[in-house]
């Protein structure tokens, strides 16, 4: 871990926190306001890769648990671990790792033909975001919730499906934005 890696992790974690403090966006037709947290998982994994992305989320979760009011709504504390949503919070860490791993290393400009090559990269990033930032996080979250509430796993999955369209849109934005940054090879 070079100094620059540590700095990137800290910068990104701070960015995640700042994004999280922006009031959630209420969207028409969606029952729960859209938070930017899953966004953070996707971006961290896509831009920094599995190792640093995972560390970003680890740092985020640890700081939140230690008492920094960085969870949406300015919340924090150990209560989350005791509650039913613990899986969603902790699941963000493996989520970022998976996203980063699936997205692969950024391809330097010029190695791929323009046009088709770019679209393929974006698609790959989108898929990585969905699998890591959505599917895996939900899997952890739902598993924990079911385990704790004695809820039926399949039934819980049906309930969560409500959020998937919103998250799919987030994944598109994340993929497009991340692609612009990955191309520049700044990291």
């Amino acid at each position, binding site marked *: 871990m070079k100094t620059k890696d540590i700095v990137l992790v800290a910068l990104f974690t701070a960015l995640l926190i700042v994004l999280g403090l922006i009031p959630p966006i209420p969207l028409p037709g969606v029952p729960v306001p859209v938070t930017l947290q899953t966004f953070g998982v996707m971006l961290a994994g896509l831009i920094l890769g599995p190792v640093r992305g995972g560390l970003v989320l680890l740092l985020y979760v640890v700081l939140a648990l230690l008492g920094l009011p960085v969870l949406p709504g300015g919340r924090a504390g*150990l209560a989350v671990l005791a509650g039913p949503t613990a899986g969603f919070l902790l699941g963000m860490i493996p989520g970022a790792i998976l996203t980063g791993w699936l997205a692969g290393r950024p391809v330097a400009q010029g190695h791929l033909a323009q046009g088709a090559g770019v679209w393929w990269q974006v698609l790959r990033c989108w898929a990585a975001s969905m699998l890591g930032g959505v599917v895996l996080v939900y899997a952890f979250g739902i598993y924990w919730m079911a385990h704790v509430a004695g809820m039926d796993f399949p039934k819980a999955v049906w309930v969560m499906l409500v959020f998937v369209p919103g998250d799919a849109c987030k994944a598109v934005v994340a993929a497009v934005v991340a692609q612009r940054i990955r191309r520049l090879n700044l990291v």
Partner: protein
Amino acid sequence: MNAAFYVVGQSPIHRLPAGRKLATLALAGAALMWVHQWQFLCLALVLVLGLLALSGVTFRQLLIQVRLLGWFILALGAYSAWAESPALALEMMLRMSTLVIAAQLVSMTTPLTQMMTVVEKVLAPLDRLGWVRAERVALACGLTLRLIPELALQWQDIREAQAARGLKPGVLTMLLPMLLRTMRRAEELAEAIDARSSG
């Protein structure tokens, strides 16, 4: 940043060392998993509420933090009562409420600096083993905290700049410039840190 969260006070709970509070919480949490009779769980809840009263943290302050979790617990309880049995639902709700309140109580009576000291102590043996470099962890934490207000300001700056140019600043348009600036900053910061570290 800490203002709304940590409740300043001098209660006996406040004065307990952080490590002890955390260890007790962990043990209590594990223990409660084995308790199934609602009477005992009720007792545990009352005990925790008593500790809450002792600490000086008002119920209202606590509620602000755990309201969302509260709704979740209620929703799950309702579902559980319908899908499984009311008895099981009650047991789950009592246990979870107790643990949530206890956990939040510990958090709200322990300032961040004390928590970080505990983290340092926990990491110390790992540091000796060579698994984790505690100094780098401390650097990452400090740096993150230090950067939050600055990035928040940068967000404002970008929003102003975009508004001045006639663009409507939404999260989507601001994200890219924000990320670019962040990535570029890393280079300079790393250089300065390297210059200061001699080990």
